[in-house]
């Protein structure tokens, strides 16, 4: 997908630039883009180092576990099919807490462990369970508290107020997380998305 989009950007740029006359500016655009990338990434180093340093302290201090415990009561309601003391619940909680702190490297292994544990509760191994779908919808809606990379890029681009987007981001991401839970819960009831059991398939024939 991204391959096609990238290809199209370049092909269209060369064709349209060639036809409308100013092909020299296309070269300039490529060079400026390349230079800006390095400027931004180098400018990003400071804040990313600062933030990930702090987040490593948060990890060692057990803040991931703390957040996980905080949201546990809510999670029990969102995942009624998962026994509260099952390892799947623990892994999902830890994954979300790590995501909330922006610890991508720590979050992914925890998320994969959560899927493995959810799979042990799954009766039909090749089909997603309701809990899996809800978990992934929440996960992809992004529960980050501080969007560190975005702030870093804003600092690199000389923003007068790099952090002014934290509040708007928290509101927007809360909306998407709520929408994730609601839509997963509603869609799981639809006939088109039900689990294909032998009984279901027989009734159909």
């Amino acid at each position, binding site marked *: *997908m*991204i391959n096609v*989009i*990238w290809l199209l950007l*370049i092909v269209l740029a060369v064709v*349209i630039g060639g036809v409308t006359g100013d092909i020299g500016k296309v070269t*300039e*655009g*490529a060079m400026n*883009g*390349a230079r800006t*990338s*390095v400027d*931004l*990434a180098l400018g*990003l*180093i400071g804040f*990313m180092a600062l933030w*990930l*340093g*702090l*987040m*490593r*302290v*948060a990890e060692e*201090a*057990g*803040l991931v576990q703390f957040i996980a415990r905080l949201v546990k009561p809510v999670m029990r309601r969102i995942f009624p099919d998962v026994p509260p003391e099952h390892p799947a619940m623990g892994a999902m909680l830890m994954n979300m807490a790590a995501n909330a702190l922006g610890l991508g490297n720590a979050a992914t292994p925890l998320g994969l462990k959560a899927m*493995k544990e959810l799979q042990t509760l799954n009766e039909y191994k090749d*089909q997603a369970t309701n809990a*899996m779908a*809800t978990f*992934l*919808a929440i*996960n*992809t*809606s992004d529960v*980050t*508290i501080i969007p560190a*990379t*975005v702030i*870093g*890029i*804003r600092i690199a*681009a000389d923003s007068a107020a790099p952090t*002014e*987007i*934290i*509040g*708007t*981001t*928290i509101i*927007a*991401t809360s*909306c*998407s997380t*709520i*929408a*994730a839970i609601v839509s997963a819960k509603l869609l*799981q009831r639809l006939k088109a998305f039900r689990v294909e059991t032998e009984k279901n398939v027989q009734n159909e024939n």
Partner: protein
Amino acid sequence: MVFREIIETISVWAIPVVFFAVVVTGYIRKVKVYEVFVDGAKEGFEIAIKIIPFLVAILAAVGMFRESGAMDMLVRLISPVTGLFGYPAEALPMAIMRPLSGSGSLGLMSELINTHGPDSFIGRLASTMMGSTETTFYIVALYFGSVSIRKQRHTVPACLIADAVGLIAAFVVCSMVF
């Protein structure tokens, strides 16, 4: 306006509060705060360097696209539709890219911030959109792939509804606050 003040207060206080909470909790829990911090900071350095190839790929291609005049054509083409809602046409490609590719949308966000300025409405909207959802298709493929699930049922529709809500919410909140 009260809503606006709340958002601004959150934005101003978030980082100092997190710093305070983390460092104090760390100290109480007997973490060697300084040494652990430095160790973690190395990772931040690596991440910033690692994204350079992705940024170069996107910013160079979009730079060519913009300078050729193709971007203006695209904006003219979609602005009658986005204009109905007051949405800036320039930010639409990034909104579409967001669920498809993390590095792609980060590149597009960086390009928008660099071209229009981080403190412009488009710059703020792009920043908010970036943090409001995740790279849906990558995560779904990775997580389901890891347990060999073939039938994803309602996962992708639910994720995409959440993405759409997040992107629309980003626009609405930014319009209200900025």
